[in-house]
Structure formats: structure tokens, C-alpha cells
């Protein structure tokens, strides 16, 4: 199906452990992500998926273990730093600027790409204006890509849920990330919205060549769009492999069926 070529390992997680007080959220988790890959982290509720994502984008700092991204090693980076390195993310409970328009939201995603000084901006000087236009164009391309032209000037808070998710994806894309983390992108969607979202996720991967890490509760969707899947349960990795392997893995089946959380 795809002409993109999965490349070298770009992100590796090595023996990461994270605990809140006495509660272990992650225990000795290791896996890697290759360039241009769609990598899924799945697991039942409370398996530590969100914690893992938060570690990757610098919200949580693991007590043990290392994270290596594009050759550099990090133990404690904050989320602003992660953003500067080219890691963007979306949130499970949509963290958009609800009072701002779709266009403005996407433009905020380009914040790190804009460099004109405060004074230039305050005085609306040529360079600032040019920069604004150039980035507006990039934002418009994303709007076009995600087919949300009709709500360009609508405050995000007024949009239906499915569209908000798309806008959030757009804002993350606006940063031209090397690695995009998607936190349950299909949660709470109906079937049609899910299919749309899948299409966009694949399109992003194909069109922009973005490496994607997505966590998902629902196994079905993920299996169709991921190259490789990591399965977490109770904060430990219980399986790692291509979707076919995962589907037939007894531990995974047990984790999903056997144990009620």
C-alpha cells in the first residue's frame, strides 16, 4: 500500500520506570520507533499508555531508564524542550484553545517556527508581516490537507468533537514535527469519524513522512494502520511486534479478555 520506506531507529526507550509515590506506572519498559513508522502502544485501561506518552514528551521524568531521540540522550527534558526537538503531540481530552479560531489554533502550532522579535511584531514591521504571511500559508496547507476550510474562522469550542480532534491534529502538524504522538486519537468517535481519522493519520504519515506513535485503547483500528505494536499491561511491556503477531499473542488476549480492570 505504501511507498514510504521505514528507516533507522529514531527513538529508543530503554528500561524506563516511572512511579508516582508508591504506585508503579511503568516498569522497565523498552522499545524503539523507526523513522516514518506508525507505531502503536496499546493496552487495557490503566496499562500505562498515557504515562508512556507523557514520558516521551517530557511531561513526566522517569526515575530510571533512558530515552534516546535522534542520537541524543535525554533524562529530563520539559515539554517545551520536546517541542523544540520536533516532538509534537495531541491529547486524549483535546487541549485546544477553545476560544480561538481554527486558524489561530493551527497558527499557534507554528509558534516555534517564528522568529521575529517582540519589537518588530509590536510595530508590525515588514519582516514580521512577511513571516506572518509565510506561516499563514503553511497553516492554510494544513487546513486544506485536513479538509477543514469550512470552519477556518470558527472558534474551536463550537465545533463537534470529531472536528476538534482533527484541528488538534492540525495544530500538532503545524509544528512540522519529526515525531508525532497521538493520545487516543479515535477515542469517543463514531465509526465514520474513526474511519476519517484513520485516513488522516495514514495520509499524514504518507504525505509528510512523519513518524507516528499512537496509543489506543481500541485494538481494532490500531491493527489496521500500525506497522508495529507495543502492548503494555500493568506498566510492563507484554508484547511487541507486527499486528499479526500481536493479534495471536496469548498474553495480549489474556490481558484484554481475562483481566477485568
Amino acid at each position, binding site marked *: 500500500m505504501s511507498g514510504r520506506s521505514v528507516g533507522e531507529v529514531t527513538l529508543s526507550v530503554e528500561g524506563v520506570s516511572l512511579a508516582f509515590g508508591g504506585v508503579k506506572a511503568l516498569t522497565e519498559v523498552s522499545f524503539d520507533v523507526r523513522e516514518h513508522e506508525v507505531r502503536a502502544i496499546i493496552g487495557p485501561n490503566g496499562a500505562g499508555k498515557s504515562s508512556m506518552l507523557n514520558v516521551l514528551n517530557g511531561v513526566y521524568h522517569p526515575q530510571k531508564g533512558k530515552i534516546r531521540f535522534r542520537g541524543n540522550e535525554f533524562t529530563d527534558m520539559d515539554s517545551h524542550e520536546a517541542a523544540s526537538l520536533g516532538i509534537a503531540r495531541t491529547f486524549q481530552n483535546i487541549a485546544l484553545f477553545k476560544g480561538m479560531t481554527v486558524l489561530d489554533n493551527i497558527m499557534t502550532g507554528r*509558534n516555534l517556527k517564528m522568529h521575529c522579535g517582540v519589537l518588530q511584531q509590536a510595530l508590525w514591521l515588514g519582516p514580521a508581516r512577511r513571516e506572518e504571511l509565510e506561516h499563514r500559508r503553511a497553516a492554510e496547507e494544513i487546513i486544506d490537507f485536513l479538509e477543514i476550510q469550512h470552519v477556518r474562522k470558527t472558534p474551536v469550542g463550537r465545533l463537534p468533537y470529531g472536528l476538534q480532534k482533527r484541528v488538534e491534529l492540525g495544530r500538532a502538524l503545524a509544528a512540522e514535527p519529526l515525531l508525532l504522538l497521538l493520545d487516543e486519537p479515535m477515542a469517543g468517535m463514531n465509526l465514520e469519524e474513526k474511519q476519517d481519522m484513520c485516513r488522516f493519520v495514514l495520509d499524514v504519515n504518507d504525505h509528510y513522512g512523519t513518524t507516528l506513535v499512537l496509543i489506543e485503547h481500541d485494538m481494532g483500528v490500531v491493527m489496521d494502520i500500525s506497522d508495529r505494536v507495543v502492548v503494555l499491561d500493568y506498566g510492563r511491556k507484554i508484547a511487541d511486534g507486527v499486528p499479526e503477531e500481536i493479534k495471536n499473542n496469548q498474553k495480549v488476549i489474556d490481558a484484554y479478555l481475562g483481566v477485568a480492570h
Partner: protein
Amino acid sequence: MDVAFFIEVLAGGLLAGVMYSLVALGFVLIYKASGVFNFAQGSMVFFAALTFVSLLERGWNFWLAFAATLAAMVALGIAIEKIVLRPLVNQAPITLFMATIGLTFVLEGVSQLMWGSQPHGLELGIPDVPMEWLSQKWNINISQFDLFAALVAGALVAVLALLFQKTRIGRALRAVADDHQAALAVGIPLQHIWAIVWAVAGFVALVAGIMWGVRNGVQYALTFVALKALPVLILGGFESILGAIVGGLIIGAGEKLAEVYLGPMVGGGIESWFAYVIALLFLLVRPEGLFGEKHIDRV
């Protein structure tokens, strides 16, 4: 009823209202970006005006003094962010509010320590007298200085609106105001933005300080102009620049008209409290203020 006189009262009120708006603007900026009600805005006005007038009195030229004061205000803004706000990140708004009360005393103390506590007169070369052609032709007395202040306020609002709507910083500012966490996640440096907001608020305080200083003299009482801004904020909404302007105009015009036309009935002295009556009445009808944001969220 004498129409010319009515117009005169109305215009006088509106122009006075512009002065309230100037002060309210400083509150709005900070509230919008950080959700903090900055109790110290009044003392920032006082500090700015006192610094400016003291430099003038030491023989500095107008623009030099203005630039130096502006620099001081920007430095103050950055310092406040670094020393006061940063350690209090993620604290409840009431904590931050208390911190700004503390800031008030520090600022008042520091200003008087630096520049002494005696009142100063301030002159910009624009006389606070009625414009002749208006009074001769229509018999309407409107102060030249009031008009000048209105123009300055208008220009200031235009620049701020442009900054907010059309630039990255403005957008970042609105983003921070909307949702701190989300702003962080897209790589908007919160601290940076707060410093900018406080610096801009400092700039607005300086302009307000100069205008009020010319009108009432630069003295400790200047810190009380903040009290005049409160009803304006209630009326206009804490988050809207436009609200601060329109609110100011309504309060200004309302209290002048009340003083002149209702005052005699109740024995005068309305002006000092009428603004609060307007604001309270308004609060009953539209608690979010005239232009305040009604947050529309899908549940």
C-alpha cells in the same frame, strides 16, 4: 433642556471615561494572559508617573525620560515575572492575587524611597482649557487636554488590538490565556509571554500615569485611580480590551450625567459612587460583562 450643555456634559463624561479606560486596560491585559487580578496596577501607574516626572524635573528631555521610564517598566515587568510569578506557577488565583497585594506595598514603598513623597505637578504643554472655537461657535466647553488624552488612548488601543490579533505574540498571548497546559504543549514559553504581558501592562501604566498626572498632579492619591477602573472592568468584562474602552466611556458619561442631572435631587456627591451603581446593575443582567467571554464549551 439646553442641548449644547447636554452635549458638553456628555462629551466631558466620555473623555473622562477614556481616562478610566486607560487604567482598566492594564488590568485587562494581565487578567487575560494570566488570570490574575493585578491589585498592583494602581501602584504601577503611580510608580511610572513618579519616575517620569522626577526625571523631567532633573532636567531630562521628554522623550529621554519617557524612554527611560519605559525601560524601567519593562524591567519591572520582567522582574515581577521572575521573582514573584514564576515561583507561584500553578498556584490558585487567590494566591497570585495576594502576591500582587504585596507587590503594591513594595512598589509604593520603593517609589517614595527613590523619589520622595511630595506631590509633583506635570505639564505636557497641552493646556487643560476649553477649545476656543468650540465654545465660541457652539458654546460647548471641551478641554483640549481631554481630547488629546482620548486620541492617545485611541492610538494605544489600536496598537494593542493589532498586536493581539495579527502577530505571533498576540496569538501566543491569547493561547496562554485560553489554556496554559495546551500552550506549553505546543511550545509556547509561558514565562516569556508573562514577562511580555507585564511589560506591556507597565507601558500602559506609564501612559495612564502621565495622563492622570497632568490632570491631578503626581501624588500618592494616584494609586486610587485603580478604584475607578473596577466598575469599568465589571461593566466591560475582565477579558476584553474593547470592553475596557466601552465600559470606561459608559461609566464616564454615566457619572457625569448623573452628577449634573440627578445630583441636585439628592444633594450632590453622586459622582464618587454612581459608577458602582451602574456596575452593580449591570452585574445583575450580564455577569460576564459587556464583552466578557462566555465560554462556549461542548460537554
